[in-house]
């Protein structure tokens, strides 16, 4: 028999020997929640860079009147892919990655409830992402029309019908997101079950870290809100491939129904995306203020309330569609109610800082900026929630400014805070503090320069998704200012990536608990061993590590 050139079984590696194929094999076949979490986050960062480059091109196109950086069709593809990527391939994997890495460590578990389903979730998500991007190559389909999807991230009917979207680009959008959604649901179910069934002895729900609480409610929202999108996408597939009439207005179907279905998913989705920010802030602010979080039960209640109310506000994206005045009133009112629990959260974070011994390290800087910027984003949100106001500014750059303020000035700031905060845990080394501060200030200036002028442009009447504009409308100055923010944002992001890369190799060893923190993940070595906890810890209060460090003054005495 001919000899077999490749080993069928994986050869054992000698101690101290580095083998690339072995490493690759380990990462590809892993079911360890920490590795999967890291893979989610690295994937999200890569897609963040891709979608960021798209945003850069969009901003360059709009920097000057009558711009011709790209042609109009490419421009449509750019904003579609930018939005779709940021929501589904950056935001969602960040949710999954953070909760995968941290939830088991925080509740004293050795892995997630379903490790193999966890791996399945990651790989199917990645496949969905590739499927979406494959549209650049394969999107032309048989008819030779189209490339990447160009229907906008919410893909309104009838743009997605066969008549207006020839070729296969929209199909790649549908299938890519559908498949990535399956991964998100798998990972969300995993997080819920892990939190409910895998907590270490003594870790009652009341003692669970805020991060885990928020992620629990976040995952609950995912499994409730994502299936409506999948359902609507299946209907769209039926329309496109079987000649169905769901969204075909020629045959009695309703284009508005797609909007309803999309936003029944879409609005909870923005809360799904912002909840990790809440989760990170609720961990970082107490540690860097040296105070337990203010009003814990109220904080949990507020998140639960936001999660609940967010399921009933979707049509505030549709005021301009022409709904009944009853619907307009209802959705205006329900949207404003969201402001109450959100206000509770902002007050409680501020109250946590009040009178605390604040350490302004990089994570805390990002959290402070988040508080201000997210407040502004929330206030413009309340403005837009008012039906008549929305009629004036619907689909204008004011809306673009509003949601970029929540997602970039809000979520991305919180994600940076989280990544700096947990970097020592993940790598065992400290990041470069000075570089972190530079990153913060540059990014802050860049974000303000880019996204504040968008609000003004909206007031001046500049519509969203516009390819270019003529001179003399008063838009030139603010557009140029918005684009000039890139000069700060790009080096800031590069600095961040460089900081993480260089620090994970050359950074100072930082020990297990550089922040003097109180949750369980800091009680184990950095980076955490594969089994997480040598002995499963026992928990008697919401700050188990504080109890260990201060046996004379443990928290359980007051709980």
């Amino acid at each position: 028999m001919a000899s077999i050139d490749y080993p069928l079984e994986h050869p054992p590696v000698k101690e101290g020997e580095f083998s690339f194929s072995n490493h690759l094999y380990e990462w590809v076949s892993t079911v360890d929640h920490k590795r999967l979490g890291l893979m989610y986050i690295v994937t999200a960062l890569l897609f963040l860079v891709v979608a960021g480059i798209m945003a850069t091109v969009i901003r360059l196109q709009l920097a000057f009147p009558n711009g011709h950086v790209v042609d109009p069709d490419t421009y449509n593809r750019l904003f579609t892919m930018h939005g779709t990527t940021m929501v589904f391939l950056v935001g969602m994997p960040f949710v999954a990655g953070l909760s995968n890495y941290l939830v088991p460590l925080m509740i004293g578990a050795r892995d997630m409830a379903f490790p193999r389903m966890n791996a399945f979730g990651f790989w199917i998500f990645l496949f969905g992402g590739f499927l979406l991007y494959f549209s650049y190559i394969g999107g032309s389909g048989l008819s030779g029309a189209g490339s990447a999807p160009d229907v906008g991230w919410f893909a309104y009917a009838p743009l997605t019908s066969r008549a207006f979207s020839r070729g296969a680009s929209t199909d790649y959008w549908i299938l890519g997101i559908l498949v990535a959604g399956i991964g998100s649901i798998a990972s969300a179910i995993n997080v819920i079950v892990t939190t409910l069934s895998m907590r270490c002895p003594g870790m009652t729900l009341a003692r669970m870290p805020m991060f885990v609480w928020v992620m629990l409610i976040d995952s609950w929202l995912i499994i409730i809100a994502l299936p409506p999108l999948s359902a609507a996408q299946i209907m769209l597939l039926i329309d496109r491939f079987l000649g169905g009439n769901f969204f075909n207005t020629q045959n009695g179907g309703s284009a508005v129904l797609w909007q309803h279905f999309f936003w029944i998913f879409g609005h909870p989705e923005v809360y799904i995306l912002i909840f990790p920010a809440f989760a990170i802030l609720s961990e970082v602010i107490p540690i860097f203020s040296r105070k337990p979080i203010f009003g814990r039960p109220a904080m949990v209640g507020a998140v639960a309330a936001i999660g609940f109310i967010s399921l009933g506000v979707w049509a505030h994206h549709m005021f301009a569609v022409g709904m009944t005045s009853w619907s307009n009133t209802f959705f205006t009112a329900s949207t404003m109610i969201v402001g109450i629990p959100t206000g509770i959260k902002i007050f409680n974070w501020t109250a946590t800082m009040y009178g605390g011994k604040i350490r302004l390290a990089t994570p805390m800087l990002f959290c402070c900026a988040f508080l201000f910027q997210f407040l502004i984003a929330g206030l413009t949100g309340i403005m837009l929630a008012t039906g008549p106001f929305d009629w004036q500014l619907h689909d204008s750059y004011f809306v673009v400014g509003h949601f970029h303020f929540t997602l970039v000035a809000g979520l991305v700031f919180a994600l940076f805070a989280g990544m700096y905060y947990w970097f020592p845990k993940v790598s065992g080394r400290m990041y470069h503090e000075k570089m972190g501060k530079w990153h913060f200030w540059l990014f802050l200036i860049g974000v303000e320069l880019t996204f504040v002028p968008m609000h003004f442009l909206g007031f001046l009447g500049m519509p969203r998704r516009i390819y270019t504009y003529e001179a003399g409308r008063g838009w030139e100055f603010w557009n140029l200012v918005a684009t000039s923010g890139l000069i700060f944002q790009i080096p800031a992001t590069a600095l961040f990536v460089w900081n993480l890369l260089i620090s994970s190799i050359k950074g100072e060893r930082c020990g297990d608990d550089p922040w003097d923190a109180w949750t369980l993940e800091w009680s184990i070595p950095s980076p955490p061993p594969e089994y997480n906890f040598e002995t499963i810890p026992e928990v008697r209060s919401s700050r188990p590590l504080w109890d260990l460090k201060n046996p004379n003054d443990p928290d359980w005495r007051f709980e």
Partner: protein
Amino acid sequence: MDTALNTQAPPVIGEWRLPDRGTMGVIFLIVTESALFTIFVVAYIVYIGRSLSGPYPKDVLDLPILASICLLSSSVTIVFAEHALKRNRVGLFKAWWFATILLGLEFLLSTGLEWRKLIYEDHLTVSTNLFGTTFYALVGLHASHVIVGLIFLLLVMLVSLFGFPIHTQERRVKFLSWYWHFVDAVWIVVFTVVYVIGR
């Protein structure tokens, strides 16, 4: 500081029991599936009576009485099968399990015959009108769940026929039966919406 407080012993953690993770997993799978079905049901309800041309539901739909009885009674037989397994009577388990599969297959067969009649005699397809689109989508989504359920039921049947000690898998059989109950419950909704309200 108060010395009495200082010497206070830490509270003892009593027996620590959390819900079974498999149980929770199946429950949340069912929750997320319910959300999926809800949207299809809503779409069906929204489009009742909106078809611009025939055939209309009242002309072509017959109540699938036999199929419904079969599917709903399969929920009963699967419970009997579970009970047999709990009392370690594997032969009885196989018999009830087989009955469940037969009832499920009969349901699928009825659906197939109904669709055949609708397509060939009444010329109702997905693209004919809104009724066709929503009907085939909703009933088809449910039927695809029946098929998935049947595949797993068959898998259990086969492995137990080939001598796999199925009584060790009581927990997983229970999860499968929960899924099957869910599929049945969805049918009650689909039946009500499509054949009672929609007609």
